């Protein structure tokens, strides 16, 4: 008895604990911007999202004050998603506050961290950094043109328009349907406008209440208030599009459009806020007529233009070609699939591949590709493709039939025989584990140093080869210039060594200077190196080198010979003077043009 009582108590406690844990909402808060780098004057959308598994009480976070960002407006969206994971239903409610800013200052800007109060707890929103760069050079964006947007109740500004008085007036959300009666499945666009004759500064949408009987998609949602002047029930208002929603009714009868509600901030001597909600909007959903409904009706409803074509008519056996079906216009694209070709033994027709270019799944173009492979050669008719839809504007069923195409399939080319060649490699069972004692990370050569070293070596070798080729070409085209260059290179080398020796006041200066000078002259004037100095000087004389220069050269070479071979002739103090002589001689020879002759 006592044991039974305890079991009951424990069970009760467990149930209470389980319920408590279920009641406790799992909340997460995140924040981010739509783009981390913007141009000066560009718009930034900063969104704070609160996710939870149940509805939580919270207040709209105050606008973060950031130097360099000018606050424009804020709007709120909420989204509920329900999914089933491992037979457990998981619900997630996301509530997002999107703040629109304009970047007014260049540089790195940080939206600072701040606390947000959800239920009884405080959550920290992390800071977000933005880089504001110089303004884009592209022309500034013009305000959204109303002319291109569907606007059933558009109204031009009257010539006698007076500026509205902001001190008294009204502000309301007004839902306008595209039409009041639709067919089952036919998409209908509902536009929500903010009408006001007051100084409204921002609108924050706080809720979007859905009702049964439709699926919906966002058709258009501007991010800023963009007012135009209209007349409504005899009074002048400014109005701004808030949202356009495409609804796809899935029940017959009266359907109620979603109700939008929000908080308007307006300036009326002081800043004040006001709750507003769109009016109840009902529209009638009619069933699709039974009369004239094709047996294989696709479920497509709308105003469509349908066309089809073959991408080629030059076909060989085994070649693949495409039949392309294009459906464009307005309709319930999300509720019908591609039609199928009638069965044929002459052609193998693949599953259709669909490419959509649609807005909100209701307006645009759908292209469907059918890949067709002929099965035998000869002349055959392509099977028919039929697409039926209900034209909601006319209230009748319409049909598209592909043209009767007679195709001549030519004998196959050599490659066509092999289309299924590789299919024979397919395995009929999974492989066994590959035995391994240990696993090492696979080496990727491109990430190895040796690979890039080899690339570098080859590149350097190529550059060196190009350099040599340049030298050869120069020797071939302009031998004098080439000789001079070579001579200068030799001279530079020896002069550098001789200069170092001179700085150290070393006797090595003289042999280095003599050798360098002689090699230089030998390269420049084509004088054989093995000749004695006397013969070399005579040859230089025959090359019309000036007497004065030759005299200086002879004196310098004598000095070199003396220092080298006469004991005690070396005087460190005279090196500097001899170095100057050497430089003067080289300058003298340098000033002579070509491989001889006076300057």
């Amino acid at each position, binding site marked *: 008895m006592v044991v039974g009582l305890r079991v009951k108590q424990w069970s009760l406690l467990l149930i209470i604990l389980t319920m408590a844990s279920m009641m406790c909402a799992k909340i997460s808060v995140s924040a981010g911007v739509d783009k981390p780098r913007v141009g000066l004057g560009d718009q930034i959308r900063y969104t704070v*999202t609160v996710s939870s598994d149940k509805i939580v009480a919270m207040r709209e976070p105050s606008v973060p004050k950031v130097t360099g960002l000018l606050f424009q407006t804020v709007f709120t969206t909420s*989204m509920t*998603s329900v*999914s089933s994971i491992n037979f457990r239903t998981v619900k997630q409610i*996301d509530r997002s506050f999107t703040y629109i800013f304009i970047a007014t200052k260049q540089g790195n800007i940080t939206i600072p961290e701040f606390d947000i109060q959800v239920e009884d707890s405080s959550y920290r929103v992390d800071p977000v950094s933005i880089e504001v760069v110089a303004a884009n050079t592209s022309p500034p964006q013009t305000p959204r043109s109303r002319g291109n947007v569907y606007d059933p109740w558009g109204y031009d500004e009257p010539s006698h328009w007076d500026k509205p008085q902001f001190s008294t007036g009204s502000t309301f959300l007004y839902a306008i349907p595209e039409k009041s009666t639709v067919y089952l499945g036919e998409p209908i666009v509902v536009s929500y406008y903010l009408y006001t004759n007051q100084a409204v500064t921002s609108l924050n949408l706080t809720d979007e209440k859905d009702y049964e009987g439709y*699926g*919906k*998609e*966002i058709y258009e949602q501007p991010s800023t208030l963009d007012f135009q002047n209209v007349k409504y029930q005899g009074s002048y208002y400014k109005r701004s599009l808030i949202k356009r929603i495409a609804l*796809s009714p899935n029940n017959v009868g009266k359907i109620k459009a979603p109700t939008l509600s929000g908080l308007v901030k307006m300036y009326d001597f002081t800043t004040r806020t006001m709750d507003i909600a769109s009016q109840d909007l009902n529209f009638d959903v009619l069933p699709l007529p039974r009369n004239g409904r094709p047996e294989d009706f696709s479920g497509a409803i709308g105003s469509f233009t349908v066309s089809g074509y073959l991408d080629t008519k030059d076909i060989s056996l085994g*070649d*693949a070609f495409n039949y392309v079906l294009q459906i464009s216009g307005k309709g319930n694209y*999300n*509720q019908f699939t591609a039609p199928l070709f009638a069965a044929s033994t002459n052609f193998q027709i*693949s*599953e*259709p*591949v*669909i*490419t*959509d270019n649609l807005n*909100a*799944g209701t307006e645009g173009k759908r292209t469907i590709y059918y*890949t067709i492979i002929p099965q035998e050669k000869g002349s055959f008719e392509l099977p028919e493709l039929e697409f039926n839809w209900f034209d909601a504007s006319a209230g009748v069923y319409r049909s598209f039939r592909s043209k009767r195409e007679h195709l001549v399939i030519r004998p196959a080319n*050599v*490659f*066509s025989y*092999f*289309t299924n*060649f*590789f299919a024979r*490699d*397919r*395995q009929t*069972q*999974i*492989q*066994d*584990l*590959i035995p*391994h004692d240990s*696993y*090492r*990370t*696979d*080496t*990727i*050569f*491109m990430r190895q140093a040796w*690979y890039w070293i*080899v690339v570098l070596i*080859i*590149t350097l*070798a*190529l550059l060196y*080869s*190009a350099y040599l*080729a340049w030298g*050869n070409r120069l020797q*071939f085209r302009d031998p004098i210039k080439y000789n001079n260059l070579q001579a200068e290179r030799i001279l530079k080398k020896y002069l550098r060594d001789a200069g170092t020796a001179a700085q150290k006041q070393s006797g090595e200066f003289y042999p280095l200077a003599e050798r360098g000078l002689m090699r230089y002259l030998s390269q420049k004037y084509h004088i054989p190196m093995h000749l004695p100095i006397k013969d070399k000087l005579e040859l230089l004389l025959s090359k019309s080198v000036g007497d004065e220069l030759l005299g200086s050269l002879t004196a310098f070479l004598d000095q070199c010979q003396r220092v080298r071979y006469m004991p005690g002739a070396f005087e460190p103090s005279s090196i500097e003077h001899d170095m100057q002589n050497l430089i003067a001689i080289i300058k003298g020879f340098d000033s002579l043009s070509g491989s001889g002759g006076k300057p």
Partner: protein
Amino acid sequence: MKKLMMLIVLFMACNWLMSQSIVSKSAPVPGMDYRNEIQKLLQIEKQGTQNADLYNNIGICYYHLNQTGVATVYFLRALNLKSDHPDAKNNLDFVMDLSKDKALYPQRAFLVQFFFRWYDFLNINRFALLALFLLLLFALSVHWTIHYDREKELGLPVLFTLISAILLFTCTVMLFTKYNRMRHNSKAVIISSESDGYSGAGTQYNKLFSASEGLIVHIQKESGEWSLILLPNGVSGWIRKTELLRVVPK
């Protein structure tokens, strides 16, 4: 006739080359404890080891544990690392054949299949070595051209240089494309038994399609808990991130 003979010889050579990668192996080892084995292999993977054989073996274990979606991901990971891995290729073909959605994969023409076989055969390392060889060939051709006897006609060395330059450029582009794809592979696999795709990032949007476990898709965009995926037949839609596994984890 000569051309046809050459074509046949080339074709046989290719066929031989391809058949080198098809190794028939025995049936699974009876009594093998795949649950234990996978724990060991995943531990090695966690240590940062990137090895194609390891990924292939993990895939095989997952397959035997009836998780074909995850198995497919691991075969793809093995092929991402080593595109010519014979076992991973065969295993992937095998699990793709089992997929309920196999009809969605497009059928490729022979020449396209042939090109992809070659492209797979040239894994990233073979491509790298080929690029190195072509760089050397190009360097030698340039060397030959610029040091060629000026008295002779330059036509032949210039032709060689041009051909080797085109080959080098093509090979380098393909090498970097392959390397980039290896690092940023956008492929993912459906891992839940049945996943629904919607026209927007949320269940309130219209349902566009259902995809089964093991289907290979491409991730185009991500938003919160949702990913915009592209099916092999070209249809795209939003699917929950939790129902997908990326080949290259972010």
